[in-house]
């Protein structure tokens, strides 16, 4: 069984371990060795990881549905006594005194922490170039970005350095890197998974979710993550159990295609457009009914998002002041100077830009024009989705307007970078679940199909994604290292 164990999905590996056909210890060590080799190679490798479990780390007696499965976890999840730096210099070497609920639920179900994954600093970015620990490379083409901010998680899963991984999504940070790396990424309904122990970016948007090789693996991870948590007052009891999907057909399912997020005017490049249209044809062949829906305010989502998220970030990141944890600027004579210099030295350029943007939007005289208006746009976007979901069950769009771009290509143009999130931000603002599955290649690089549904429609979303995944039969083997 150990031959070919790296090819197993998490669902298959869990079954093999439960049946005694596969040693959990052997599986963990195989992945650990691969992850450690990538870490040792630094930027000569894919640079997916900021920490890898040391050799011979003791295995807890693993039991439960995930018994013995290794999992890689985005750096911004607090993991007790394991470095949790959120991709930032300001938290270099930070060892949290507790573990995030989402991680604890997975390890409580038997999963084992394999590694922490590289990410854009404080999850701010769409290319992983904003990490203080160097950019991650896309395993499909090493001169290209893996997407972000959960770029390390997506690249690690695509390259076969981890069977699956945890990411977080604020405006697309699970879905977009999953799309650019040719893997599956699911952003759950806001509140479905506890945010406790996630180093916060924008609290009304941040949501944890799985990045996986296939849809069933994503479902298995999610099934163990959801649920109310006394430590996160915005977490909710999920109304039903998350099931492993098995649908092969889509008869009776009504799928909506919003012009606003799928046309050339939305900045969707031709190759992505072709793969998306082919996926729509597959959905029809499977028996789904396709129709146009309107999300009239969706083109304004990006503007609203780039007010709301930086505003929340400017408040959340006020805690990094050199007093209680993380780095402190040397030799400051006086308290205010210690704060301002610590933050200058500890934060990277994109984080500074967003703190400045958010502080500006919240400052006296500008609050209503920016923050107030953005909150009203958010209402209109939610209303658009509610209306659309009266006509259709799920909505399909490309996940990202382009395939993976070259490292450095957009680094000097923040606005061009932000446009990566054009198709994913509307769902984030509405708090609804959305999944990205690979739907083909354009110029040899993966294209993602985004499927979104109403709040708590994860099971329906997973069933549709599973049927489409089978029909599309995407082959990700070229990315394995």
């Amino acid at each position, binding site marked *: 069984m150990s031959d070919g164990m790296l090819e197993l999905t998490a669902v298959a590996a869990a079954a093999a371990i439960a049946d005694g056909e596969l040693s959990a210890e052997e599986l963990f060590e195989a992945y650990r060795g691969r992850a450690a080799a990538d870490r040792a190679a630094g930027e000569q490798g894919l640079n997916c990881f900021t920490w890898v479990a040391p050799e011979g780390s003791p295995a807890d007696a693993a039991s439960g549905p995930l018994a013995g499965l290794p999992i890689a976890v985005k750096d911004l999840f607090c993991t007790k006594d394991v470095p949790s730096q959120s991709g930032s210099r300001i938290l270099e070497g*930070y*060892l949290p*005194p507790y573990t995030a609920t989402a991680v604890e639920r997975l390890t409580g179900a038997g999963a084992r922490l394999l590694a922490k994954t590289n990410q854009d600093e404080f999850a701010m970015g769409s290319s992983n170039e904003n990490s203080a620990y160097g950019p991650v490379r896309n395993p499909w083409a090493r001169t290209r970005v893996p997407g972000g901010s959960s770029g390390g998680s997506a690249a690690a899963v695509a390259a076969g350095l981890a069977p699956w991984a945890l990411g977080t999504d604020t405006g697309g940070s699970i879905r977009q890197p999953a799309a650019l790396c040719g893997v599956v990424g699911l952003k759950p309904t*806001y*509140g479905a998974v506890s945010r406790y122990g996630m180093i916060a970016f924008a609290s*009304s948007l941040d949501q944890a979710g799985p990045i996986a090789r296939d849809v069933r693996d994503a479902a298995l991870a999610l099934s163990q993550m959801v649920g109310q948590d006394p430590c996160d*007052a*915005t977490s*909710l009891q999920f109304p039903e159990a998350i099931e492993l999907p098995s649908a092969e057909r889509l008869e009776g399912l009504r799928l909506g295609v919003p012009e606003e997020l799928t046309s050339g005017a939305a900045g969707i490049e031709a190759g992505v457009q072709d793969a998306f249209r082919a996926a729509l044809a597959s959905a029809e062949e499977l028996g789904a009914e396709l129709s146009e829906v309107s999300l009239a305010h969706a083109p*304004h989502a*990006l*503007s609203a998002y*780039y*007010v709301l998220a930086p505003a929340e970030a*400017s408040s959340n990141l*006020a805690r990094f*002041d050199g*007093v*209680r*944890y*993380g780095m*402190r600027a040397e030799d400051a*004579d*006086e*308290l*205010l*100077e*210690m*704060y*301002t*210099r610590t*933050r*200058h030295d500890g*934060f990277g350029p994109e984080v*500074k*830009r967003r*703190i*400045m*943007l958010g*502080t*500006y939007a919240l*400052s006296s005289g500008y609050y209503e*024009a*920016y923050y*107030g*208006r*953005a*909150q*009203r*746009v*958010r*209402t*209109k976007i*939610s209303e658009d989705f509610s209306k659309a979901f009266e006509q259709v069950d799920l909505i399909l769009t490309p996940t990202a307007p382009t395939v993976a771009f070259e490292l450095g290509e957009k680094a000097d143009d*923040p*606005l061009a970078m*932000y446009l990566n999130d054009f198709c994913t931000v509307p769902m984030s603002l*509405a*708090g609804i679940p959305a999944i990205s599955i690979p739907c083909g290649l354009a110029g040899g690089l993966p294209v993602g199909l985004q499927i979104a549904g109403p*709040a708590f429609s994860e099971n329906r979303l997973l069933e549709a994604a599973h049927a489409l995944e089978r029909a599309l039969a995407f082959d990700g083997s070229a990315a394995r290292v």
Partner: protein
Amino acid sequence: MITDDEVLHVARLARLALSGQEIAPMARELSAVLDHIARIGELDLDDVPPTSHVVEVSGALRADEPRPCLPREVALAQAPAVSDDGFLVPSPNA
């Protein structure tokens, strides 16, 4: 267009030091993003209520029972500087 003075004002509010060379690029980049954002000014939003949170949660209270909190030595363990049993910082008015 955001001026250099406005950049410095906002940086002061954000408790962020900026070096001389960082000010002009910051003004330029913020202006580009704010120009894009300004498009939401064209929408008619007069009667639209704001959304601050997408989920309706009310009465999310836990039982009011005493329980242990983080031990002091654990809370202090990651601090850059401590003194006796507290966080040590430079004087505010040195």
